[in-house]
């Protein structure tokens, strides 16, 4: 008969406690040692912090090389794409000398058809003519290759002298209206220039 004073839970605990009082075996020490050694051997490495990971990545040579390569390429691209420094228009004489100095080696170095003129030189050519005195022989020699190089550039405007020659030609063929329009256009481009005097000088040459 089941004693009503003893609940099933109490019976359960009493029986369990009775068995627990009697040790029924332990894992052998060798088994303990084997399992603990395996746990130490195969323990996952602690995850490094974000700062440690970044520092570790920076210490790797391939990162240094990659960073140096990217920096070098960026520097080269920056130098190649750098726009030319605007010229100082307040000193026309300096511009003339600078322009002439830059044109001479360019002309001497390569034949004009094979080497198109660099854009900055083409743009500076009219400024050189602005300050020039009526044509001298050596400057005329310099102007010829420069003119050829200017023609080679698709977007280059005719020089002042070319414009004046064109006006003279138009007047000679009797197209005075077109000649006047050309003169007006030249005047807009070269407002400080005494165009009639230059025309007269050219006509008399």
């Amino acid at each position: 008969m089941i004693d009503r004073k003893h609940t099933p839970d109490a019976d359960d605990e009493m029986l369990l406690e009775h068995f627990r009082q009697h040790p029924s075996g332990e894992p052998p020490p060798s088994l303990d040692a084997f399992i603990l050694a395996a746990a130490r051997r195969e323990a996952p490495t602690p995850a490094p912090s974000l700062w440690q990971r970044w520092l570790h990545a920076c210490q790797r040579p391939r990162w240094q090389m990659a960073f140096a390569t990217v920096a070098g390429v960026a520097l080269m691209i920056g130098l190649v794409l750098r726009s030319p420094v605007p010229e100082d228009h307040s000193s026309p004489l300096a511009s003339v000398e600078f322009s002439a100095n830059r044109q001479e080696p360019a002309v001497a170095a390569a034949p004009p058809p094979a080497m198109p003129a660099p854009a900055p030189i083409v743009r500076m050519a009219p400024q050189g003519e602005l300050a020039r005195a009526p044509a001298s022989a050596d400057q005329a020699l310099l102007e010829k290759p420069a003119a050829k190089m200017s023609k080679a550039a698709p977007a280059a405007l005719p020089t002042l002298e070319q414009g004046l020659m064109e006006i003279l030609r138009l007047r000679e063929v009797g197209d005075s209206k077109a000649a006047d329009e050309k003169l007006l256009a030249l005047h807009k481009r070269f407002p400080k220039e005494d165009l009639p005097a230059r025309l007269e000088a050219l006509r008399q040459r």
Partner: protein
Amino acid sequence: MPAALDSPSDEALLARNRNGDGASFEVLYARHRQGLYRFLVSLSNKAELAEEIFQDTWLSLIRSATQPQGRASFRTWLFQIARNRLIDHWRKHGVHNPLHDSYDEQLHVQPDDASSPEQQLSLSRDQARLDAALQALPEDQREVFLLRLHGDLELPQIAALTGAPLETVKSRLRYAQQKLHRLLAEEVPA
């Protein structure tokens, strides 16, 4: 045994071990080595087989990156791994799995004449008799009793681990206790 209130839980220790804290595993191992080993020895009734399964269980836990899923506690998870390993061993070696027997507890119930207080206090303390009494239990009753004894698992946890309905687990435990009382007390004078 449950961990003390001020000590980290099994689950916290396992998580710390997964993050590289080797000492956490040693604490976990110290907590559960004895209960798991005794459970396996009593369930398989073979010390060598119990040691093999015990080692496999801990090594699989060491090499696994998983954690107990859902509401399962570490203890339930550990005993479930061990139980599955033992069943796999029986299956692999062609041993009939006694835990999968359909067992009608009612047919094995005998009148419990040994549950009086006097008889309960005079249960046999002979280790050999305790072991023999355990081995005399039907396998599924023995499994439930051993999970309760060595795993310190609650009945719902045992039900989840064994995949048996909770009422079935309750009845298995009740019948196991009745039989153990009878076997351990029958030769003691009342």
